[in-house]
């Protein structure tokens, strides 16, 4: 038994990949009224050497793939100022350019970096935003995403979600054996890191609200069990391994509790576990399937999937228990609810004549907007700014990730270079 346990541990590798894009993100549809913007190549204080990072292209890619911006081709730039005073407003106005970003990367005496930038409104002839950000070398990519976030917020009106991460599961066949990996990557697909590898299935990654831990379901013990893993240290804790199902972990907004599904008392029911003492509070009592709890942003309610009416539908229940209330009525199959960050809607899997699509349930009027049009879409997860939903779709190449704006107008495909990818979970804003 002990030997078996050791073998099991040995098969769970903790590996880190170097910075490279594992996800290749393409916009498949965009909106017509995207904002024109020019990103001028950043100045670099050590002009005789190559800059350590191409901030310009990271920011350009962020904005372009959001579908909300039309980034000017570098070859078309009329000038390349890196100081406000050298901007020739007339040249930009002639080209109809509304906003430009200029900036500089400086090497400091201490060997660190400093990034300064200005976002300039060409027509009003004034600066919209200007920042100076000190950064260690390994944080320069994040600084580029933070600049994209600031541009997005200033020009679109809601915070950007470029400086965030995504967790997901990949499955690769190696020598005819399946290898399941829990990975995280930056929202642009770079810096992929493997947190766990296992011969047995992994599913349902869920981010802690502070973005430092991930709860997930692993079958490594030949049954479902819930683990919580620290992303930085790789240390993990087995928090739930009762007889039967242990699944669907979802963190409370304050990070102290997990909502989860257990079948230890006969059939699948929703419970809340306090993480400090692992005590359980049972929330549902019904002979049918109750699973997939999602915590409302207020922390007061859980949405979950239940088949108590015959087929799967979404219900809401107070975290103190009581009678669940059915909230989805359109269609015969609604499952896997997740609240939007503002708590006003829920994204879910919605079946339309035999096809499984991503929908948004409007909690004010109960209507469901269908955002996608493939056959086997699942596992929707909101970006922390509520602007996009990432989800898994099954195509000819197996499982892939895709994202769609919550208004359904912008569609992105995130193509993994090899293997199946599934169960995306968009992480919180990084602090």
């Amino acid at each position: 038994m002990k030997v078996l346990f050791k073998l099991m541990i040995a098969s769970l590798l903790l590996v880190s990949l170097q910075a490279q894009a594992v996800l290749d993100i393409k916009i498949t549809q965009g909106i017509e009224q995207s904002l024109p913007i020019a990103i001028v190549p950043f100045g670099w204080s050590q002009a005789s050497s190559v800059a350590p990072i191409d901030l310009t292209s990271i920011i350009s890619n962020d904005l372009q793939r959001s579908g909300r911006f039309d980034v000017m081709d570098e070859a078309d730039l009329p000038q390349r100022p890196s100081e406000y005073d050298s901007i020739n407003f007339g040249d930009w106005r002639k080209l109809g350019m509304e906003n430009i970003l200029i900036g500089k990367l400086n090497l400091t005496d201490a060997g660190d970096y400093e990034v300064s930038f200005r976002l300039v409104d060409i027509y009003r002839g004034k600066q919209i935003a200007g920042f100076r950000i000190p950064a260690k070398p390994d944080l320069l990519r994040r600084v580029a995403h933070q600049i994209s976030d600031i541009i997005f917020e200033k020009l679109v009106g809601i915070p950007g979600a470029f400086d965030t991460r995504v967790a997901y599961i990949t499955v690769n066949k190696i020598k005819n054996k399946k290898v399941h990996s829990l990975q995280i990557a930056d929202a642009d697909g770079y810096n992929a890191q493997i947190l766990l590898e296992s011969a047995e299935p992994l599913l349902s990654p869920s981010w802690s609200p502070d973005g430092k831990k991930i709860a997930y379901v692993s079958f490594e013990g030949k049954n479902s069990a819930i683990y919580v893993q620290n992303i930085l240290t790789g240390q993990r804790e087995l928090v739930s391994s009762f007889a039967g199902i242990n699944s669907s972990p979802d963190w409370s907004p304050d990070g102290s509790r997990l909502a989860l599904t257990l079948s230890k008392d006969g059939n699948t029911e929703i419970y809340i576990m306090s993480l400090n003492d692992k005590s359980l509070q049972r929330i549902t009592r019904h002979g049918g399937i109750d699973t997939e709890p999602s915590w409302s942003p207020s922390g007061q309610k859980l949405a979950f999937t239940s088949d108590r009416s015959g087929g799967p539908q979404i219900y809401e229940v107070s975290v103190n228990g009581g009678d669940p209330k059915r909230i989805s009525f359109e269609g015969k199959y609604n499952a896997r609810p997740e609240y939007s960050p503002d708590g006003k809607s829920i994204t879910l899997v919605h079946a339309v004549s035999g096809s499984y699509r991503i929908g948004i349930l409007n909690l004010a009027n109960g209507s469901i907007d269908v955002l996608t049009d493939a056959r086997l879409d699942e596992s929707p997860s909101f970006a922390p700014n509520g602007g996009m939903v990432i989800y898994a779709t099954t195509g000819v190449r197996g499982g892939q990730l895709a994202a769609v704006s919550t208004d359904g107008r912008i569609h992105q495909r995130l193509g993994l270079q090899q293997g199946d990818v599934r169960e995306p979970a968009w992480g919180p804003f990084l602090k």
Partner: protein
Amino acid sequence: MSIRLLLVVSLAGLLFGCSNEQVKEEEPVTVEDLSSNAANVNVTDESGAQAYGTDDNSTSGFDALDDPQSALSIRIIYFEYNSNEISSEYRSAIEAHAAYLSQNPSTTITLEGHADERGSREYNLALGESRAQAVKQQMLILGASSSQIRLVSYGEERPAIDGHDESSWQQNRRVEILY
């Protein structure tokens, strides 16, 4: 040509039968710990096939579990889409397994529930469990004891067939009976 093949096959069958007999004589009760069974028990199913429980005095030469004619040889129960209802065609098989468990109290089985890939993974995990639970409930009514049956659901995570069409999905909506 075909006659020769037939000969070879039947010869192999004879040889297999012989060697099986020898092993049986040397080690009468090695396959499973079924020695607590006092009597030889016959289980009859609707198709008229006979299943035998084994004990020290068994003369049948093999465990009923290994009899391809027995209803016990049915080890997979298939389900309709999004349903945990057991089709009546599996009644005799479930009766046979329940009777076997009842007559062999130290035998345990695992009921492994599965779902096809459509819809959400966590819901499918619960669906696989509810299918396994449905089979368990029938077996309990028919005489098996709860402690003999372990449930595990893999949902859609372990498909029997990897395809994305109805013919694959049919094969994947299942409960496997594992001794």
